[in-house]
């Protein structure tokens, strides 16, 4: 009875309550990666032509914009915000690239301007969220319409497609000797950057704190507003870059490019284990989530399954992943509670 209150010798603390393998394997991320590997294995075995290098090329080429934008989106959702305007920013950047080329600028100049426009768009989101203090869900529903509206308004009826071939080829070529598109190099660099930023820097630490409790974060000297502002700028910039890539890949600048992609991106991020309430999630899970949806779609399309079924599966996957997580924790609680009851009863009956 009194043992607990005795000021004894200095305590020692274990760093972790659970062994390493549990902390690594019993996670949301690990299960998504496992699922991805399983889907690949099954598709290799059963879907004709899936094992061809073309699959890798096409898959990566098409999911590249989602992969790219999912990186900053992960950080934003971890701070408990959301950016629904990314696909519109992509469209706007695409239009700016096109207009630049049409106006006779060299393509690299147009590309830089497009990325800057993306950054500006992100800054507008960021300012509305952090300076004015509005909920990002509402703000970015608004800018989703606004940026898309500007994109469609600027280009009107036309599509611009006379981009220099050297550049459009670059967007389509593979790393020599591999079936992997060149754009994946850009992605890898960005992914590495974002992973280090999120998981190994003080800034990354602060993002989790912001997502879980922004008041406590502010009291810890974290500049919540500024951090979020820069995340939105990053999101806009990457979306702008994705817009340039998209334009070159399809040799086509249009106002309605990638319309509706925001929800695909968010679905993938959430599937990858990021909590919509903020504070939880990791980049490797997100990348696996994007690839999982992409691979599943690619394999099913190859197997002749129509796109509607693919949509149904994407939705089911998303719903099941969150429901199973909450069901598992419920079962766990139940088990622990039952354990507690049993433990609670035995001393009760014996005394």
């Amino acid at each position, binding site marked *: 009875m009194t043992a607990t209150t005795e000021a004894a010798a200095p305590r020692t603390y274990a760093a972790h309550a659970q062994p390493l393998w549990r902390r690594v394997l019993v996670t949301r991320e690990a299960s998504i990666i496992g699922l991805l590997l399983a889907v690949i294995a099954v598709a290799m075995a059963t879907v004709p032509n899936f094992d061809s290098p073309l699959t890798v090329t096409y898959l990566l080429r*098409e999911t590249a914009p989602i992969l790219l934008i999912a990186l900053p989106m992960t950080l934003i959702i971890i701070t408990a915000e959301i950016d629904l305007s990314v696909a519109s920013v992509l469209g706007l950047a695409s239009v700016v690239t096109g207009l630049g080329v049409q106006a006779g600028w060299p393509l690299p100049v147009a590309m830089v301007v497009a990325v800057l426009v993306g950054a500006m768009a992100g800054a507008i989101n960021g300012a509305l969220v952090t300076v004015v203090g509005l909920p990002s869900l509402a703000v970015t529903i608004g800018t989703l319409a606004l940026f898309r509206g500007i994109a469609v308004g600027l280009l009107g*009826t036309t599509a611009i*497609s006379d981009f220099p071939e050297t550049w459009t080829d670059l967007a389509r070529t593979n790393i020599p000797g591999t079936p992997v598109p060149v754009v994946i190099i850009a992605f890898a660099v960005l992914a590495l950057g974002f992973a280090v930023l999120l998981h190994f820097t003080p800034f990354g630490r602060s993002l989790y704190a912001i997502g879980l409790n922004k008041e406590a974060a502010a009291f810890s000297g974290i500049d919540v507003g500024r951090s979020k502002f820069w995340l939105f700028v990053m999101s806009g910039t990457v979306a702008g870059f994705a817009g340039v890539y998209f334009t070159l890949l*399809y*040799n*086509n600048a249009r106002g309605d490019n990638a*319309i509706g992609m925001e929800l695909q991106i968010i679905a993938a991020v959430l599937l990858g284990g990021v909590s919509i309430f903020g504070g939880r999630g990791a980049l490797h899970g997100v990348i696996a989530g994007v690839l999982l949806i992409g691979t599943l779609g690619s394999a099913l399309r*190859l197997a002749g399954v129509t*796109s509607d079924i693919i949509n149904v599966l994407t939705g089911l996957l998303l719903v099941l992943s969150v429901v199973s997580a909450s069901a598992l924790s419920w079962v766990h609680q139940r088990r622990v509670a039952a354990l507690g009851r049993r433990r609670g009863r035995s001393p009760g009956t014996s005394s």
Partner: protein
Amino acid sequence: SGGDDAGSDGGDAGGGGSEEAASITFLPKSLGNPYFDTSNAGGADAVEELGGTFEEVGPSEASPTSQVSFIETAAQQGVDALVVSANDPEAICDALNEARDVGVAVVTFDSDTNPECRDLFVNQATAEGIAQAQVDLITEQIDDSGQIAILSASANATNQNAWIELMEAELDANHPDVELVEVAYGDDDDQTSFDKTAALLQTYPELEGIVSPTTVGIAAAARYLSTSEYQGEVALTGLGTPNQMREYVEDGTVEAFALWNPADLGYLSAYAANALATGEISGEAGDTFEAGELGSYEVDEEGTVLLGDPFVFDADNIGDFDF
């Protein structure tokens, strides 16, 4: 089967291939569009006659980038031929070329891409013919004077824009009293076209007529007109399918409209695709092939095969058609 005769004199390279069943994939602008339903059905008939395998894939909304993934899948599957109606002349070009690189024969129909991205284009009617037919129809119905508007599909549809350009030229040249006040875009979406029609009528109270060179647009516009005070006041014509338009022709909303037979278009495209896939033709000008019950066709300049002239439907003849 059908094309054997032409096949045997088409060339040695294709000799062996013609025995084998070709796999042909149809990729319309979007699924759920009755016009393409009809044309694809024609294509399916032809493939059946040829003994090949037919497949129909497509996006649910008419956008070029979503067509690309279907083109890529076809390339991965290694189908023999792909028959596609392009949502954009450029955007799907590279994907089509990649498909051709792995040996897929590419035929465009209904809406073409740049000529260098496909082997053959099956043209439903010359753009001039279509533009002419529609201008003739509308000017006749409004007595060659007054305001008209065009309700198009999406702003980037190749064929639509080509026709509209030619129609504008024709109006400028030969119909000085007819003023084209606006080109509206219904995106080949029923609801949008419907609402755009309402907006046109309201924005231009003096409007005399609407031309909608797209089957979705004309049907939506007709439906709006038929319940509005403008029924019979504002003329409507364009390109439509008889089944969709029958009701409105009968109730007087629409006097006459034009179209080719989309089933024939699909049918011809399938034969053309088969001929390419089997090596019977290479898509050069002057190549000829047999298209089953449609008879013999020749490839002309720019790798185009022409189906024929547009056909005008009106109250007198519409009862004879079912598509």
